């Protein structure tokens, strides 16, 4: 069990680093133009939506990893 928990911790760490890479390389450079003073606002809203989608995907992957690592122990 303990090695499973260490593995789960490590998996979370790797996901954080990969998620950071996606944020910096894809989300960061997004900028919307053509809406005047609303440019910054619209850009922020789009970034927020993409970030939320990423968080949902991240949680989904974590749940899958959790079930895979702990499937024997969690007879629920």
């Amino acid at each position, binding site marked *: *069990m*303990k090695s*499973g*928990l*260490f593995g*789960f*911790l*490590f998996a*979370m*760490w790797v996901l*954080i*680093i990969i998620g*950071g*890479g996606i*944020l*910096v*390389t894809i*989300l*960061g450079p997004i900028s919307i133009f053509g809406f005047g003073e609303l440019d*910054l*606002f619209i850009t*922020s809203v789009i*970034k*927020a939506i993409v*970030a939320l989608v990423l968080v949902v995907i991240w*949680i989904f992957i*974590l*749940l899958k990893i*959790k079930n895979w690592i*702990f499937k024997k*122990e*969690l*007879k*629920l």
Partner: protein
Amino acid sequence: MIDLLAPAIISCVVAFAVVFVMTPPLIKILEKRNFAVKDVNKKENVMVVRPGGPAIIAGIITSELVLYAFFQMNEILAILITTSAAFAIGYVDDRKVMGGWFKPVALAVAAIPIIALGAYDSDLAFPLFGTVQIPALYLALIIFMIPITGNTINSIDVLNGVASGFMVIASFSLSICLFIVQNYEIAIVSLPLGFVSLAFYKYHKIPSKIFPGDSGALTFGSMYGAIAIVGGVEIIAAVALLPAVINSFLFLSSVKRIVEHRQIKGKPVEHTDDFRLKATDDKKAPVTLVRLILARGPMSEKQVAFAIFKLAIFSGILAIITAFMMGVSI
């Protein structure tokens, strides 16, 4: 760097001494007023006083005021106000049972001083890939971060000494990381949290003489979150806190809503005849870190606590590796 040495030493000594000296009289006062709860993991009918929050916040306020006398930084004021507000929120919850949403919402409000004092940098730094500028989104991150760190530490406060012992490991790891990323002033500002936790652990470790209560746990967690924001090390701080994050994640993913622990019907853990801890097969009970640790067989309370500390040390090492990776770009 050398000129930072004196404030660092003085504030650490003050932080440790205030909590170390103040906790025994606080225990006596709480005993007199009969502010005690049953320690459910003991065979005998052991009553333990709570909350230890007043001693913890006294140590934090005095040590941070000492640091403020040396460096008049808005960051120190932001940490002080947010942490004190979190203590007050926890103290209300200690005295009166509040609903499941009270703490997250009130802690979100407690994060506002960080924004009002401008004690943050809206660039979010990631290892290997650099920073991302998210000015508007970052404000939301601040509002979310304090409730998350506060409640995360609160949710791990389930066994004797775990919350304070875990905080010792996580906060010293965070301080080391702040030194690695060369944010020396905030590194020094963060040190009192580790020393306050260490002094409180002396009385909280098994067998506990006092519990931190919500006021103590929220104070620990909120100060940790505030340091992460003003120090610009949000990702590193999240990594050092991973075992507690896992606990909250497992809890929420099994319960699927925000509730107080006392509202949960199923018991994730029960006791054997010799009063060791054992995971239950109760399908209504939430999945927690302790339940997973116990999944392969019963363990004593002390063994479970040390298993959690080993996980905390592992994440502390991952946080330090992450801090070194901040200086590398691909």
